[in-house]
């Protein structure tokens, strides 16, 4: 089922497309509240536009923290991202802000 594309979903897709794979990183990248982003991630996964994996336990142990869950776009998700970019042209203007926050 293809859901209507909201701007928040477009932002999350965009973040995923730009390689932000973890929940909090996506929050940083989009500037959206966590209560919005997480349900979007769940839905993307339900609709098979994204898949999630757990990062390797070894890496996490090295950093003395639990393993994180990362999300990547599926091919369908990538297609959907293209649609999103066409529909919301200003998406390309956003990375600057996200990068600024990360700095």
């Amino acid at each position, binding site marked *: 089922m293809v859901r209507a594309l909201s701007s928040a979903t477009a932002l999350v897709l965009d973040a995923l497309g730009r390689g932000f794979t973890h929940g909090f990183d996506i*929050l940083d990248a989009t500037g959206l509240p966590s*209560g919005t982003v*997480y349900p979007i991630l769940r839905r993307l996964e339900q609709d098979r536009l994204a898949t999630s994996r757990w990062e390797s336990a070894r890496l996490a142990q090295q950093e*003395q*923290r639990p393993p*994180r*869950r990362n999300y990547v776009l599926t091919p369908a998700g990538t297609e959907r991202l293209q649609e999103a970019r066409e529909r919301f042209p200003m998406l390309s203007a956003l990375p600057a802000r996200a990068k600024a926050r990360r700095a």
Partner: protein
Amino acid sequence: MSRPPLLVALALRLVRIASLLVPTRDRHAWRREWEAEIVHRQVTLDRERRSSLAEQAVIGRRALGSLADAAWLRRQFTRDSDLVHDVRHALRYFRSRPGYFAFAAAILAIGIGGTTAAFSLMDKLVLRALPYPEPARLVSLWQRNSATGDQREEVAPGNFADWRARATTFEVIAAAEPWSVDYINGHRPEPLFATRVTERFFDLLGVRPLHGRLFVDDDHRPDAPAVAIISHAFWQRLGGDPAVVSRPVVLDAAPVTVIGVLPKDAELNLFDNRGERDVFLPKVLIERERQNRDSNYWAAIGRLRPGVTRGQAQEELDRISAQLAVEQPRTNASTTAGVGPLETHLMRTVRPALSVMIGAVVLVLLIACANVANLTLVRGAERQREFALRGALGASRARLVRQLLTENAVVALAGTALAIGVAWAALRAMIRFAPIQERRLDTITLDWSMLAIAIGVGAVTAIVFGLAPALQFSHRRPLSSGHDRADIGTRRSRVFRDALVVTEVAIAAVLAVVVGLLLRSFTELLETHPGFRPERAAVVQVFAWDRHNTPEKLVAFHDTILERLRRLPGVREAGSVSAMPFIDANINIESPFAIDGRAPAPRGQEPTTHLTVATPGYFSVMNIPVIAGRGLTADDHQRATPVAVITRTLASKYWPAGDAVGSRISFRFSGRVRNLEIVGVVGEVRHDALELPPRDELFMPYAQVPFGSISFVFESDADPKRLMQPAMATVWDVDWQQTIYDSGTVEQLIAASVAPRRFALVLSGVFGSLALLLAAMGIYAVMTVSTRQRTREIGVRLALGASSGEIARLVLARGLVLGAIGLAAGLAGALITTPLLQRHLFAVTPGDPLTLVAVALIVVVMTMIACYVPARRAMRVDPLMALREG
């Protein structure tokens, strides 16, 4: 990570709490994901030495989002849950079958609503205890007269005084005397029904005053100041101000101090006449009353001592009666005392109706349950295929049971919601038709606990029988019926369903017979000739002694009004009588008499008759025929020979040879012994109720025996209602302070006398119709399904050349067979049960053939109507489609 900062620790705690919202399946992973993000961020901040309160606040704020995330997951899960799924499935299912849904809900609504309304009424009127403390100890006392066979008479003051003095099984015995007082309301006098009560009357009941106080023994002393206690209703009329207490009101032209106000629920309808008691006065027992054992008009009540049974009280009263019979042989030789629950006495007017109703209600609920059971069984049978398929696709039996439960619960819910409306409407209707003297009815509201019980019964039926298909499903191999549409429902279940319908029809037929018998009794009663022709007659009743206290004044008052009434435009004739038929507050005087020239009868066994005073106009207004001799005339004036006319019943009883005219009789009347010549015999009149036999009566001319109890009757040449106001104004023109006690057309008086019967009829009529309706619905449902089941057979028949008329007959025949079996069982049941109705019947036998035939016709017609739609449907079957589908 080392020990996290406070805000981060709080964030982790919040995530753990939020995780409780997450469906169990995902909870662990979900929590790990959130914790990992939080810890990772903190570790990173620590490593980069950027940890600050601001950054920690960001983490905290994000953790708040975990609540939204968890809630979202929960919503997703719930939407997919079995329950929600089942409910949605059920709604979808019913949307595609609105007819079935409405049908089932309506049956439940009628059954539950009707039962609730009936029980709410009964609960208030019969089942609930009196609004007094320890009501089981409250009794009413009455006199029995073994000579006249009267099992229930009011009590004579003298006997009451002796009972009270001698009985030891009672804590208190008290009596109430019907009374009335004149109250000037504005500038029109108005009669108030009052009661004079003996010492400790209210204490006996346990009534607490709303305001002020109750009577104390000193109030009953002859020299005590005049005091009164007023009813809640009258207090409201006076303004409802507590300060009314200790203020005087003018009653019977004298100031009386109000000392107390009764609470609203303290209604006590001890007397038979209409109207509520508004004023209570302390009774002062005078010596003359102590000796009065002849006229019995008091209502006596008592409170038993703790531990004393009614049987013990009865034994004691029997002993006292035996003593009194010896001490007072003239009056008490044949008098005994009776004792019974006060409640029974208070409920005497509505109880007959209610006992009929209890039976009707139970039967209707039975039919409704049978109907619901049938419907759900039918539907289950229809869905064998669906369930078989779902079973084959892996649905467990538990899953199917759960789904059916949900569906039935949805129907039950809708039915219940409707039932509240039905109950409310039914209750309003019943109260509207109740006999008017039951003021308590006004306070009846729906009884929610009764509603709960009725809903329980209905819902359990719906649910239990609704499960049948799921249970049957387990007995079959899942796909065995997958492609066999004609095989819907096993033979066994079909027989069971048919039996249910037959039962419904049978019960409905029994109820219909009951209603029919009551209806016949009622119409017979209304057609009973009262002995007079009431069409255009009306009456205005006064008691004139108080204001016209000498015979001369009385005659002047009486004659002036009668003369003016005669001259009123539209009045054809006017007359007066001292005891008007069908009026409540009559002065009925029954007295022993002796016939001149015959040996006196032994004491206590003298012949008795009612003694009435009338003018010649009374007989012509009422169309009472003269049968022998002559009627009263204007020539029977004061100075003429004292004469009387008697009724035919009296004449035939004591002058069987027809020689009444010309003989002389003597009796005491108004304190004097009278000796009169009987000059004529007139038609007898039913006096108190249409169902009671006409009474023996002797009429004396008013001119010779002026009397204070006067009912002016007049005949109008058109609708007598129009003349009521002018007639009352005529009385007030002559004396503006004269109170008018009762007034109305004679037809209204008769209608009021049959009100309790009408109530019983309306109640049983409502439930009888419901029963028939439900039974018809049952037949309809069964025929609809069986027709659908036989679609293929019908198709084959049509293909082989059967006409649609033959098909319709096929359907009809089966419906009629079911209806006929039910009818036969019902009529047999009616013959067994209706003798219980005997005392509610009038001029109709329990096995009345006309009623039975009528009910049979109704049931047959009802069956045919119920079969009509299924038959039409069968006629329209397309043979090709039927064969292909089958």
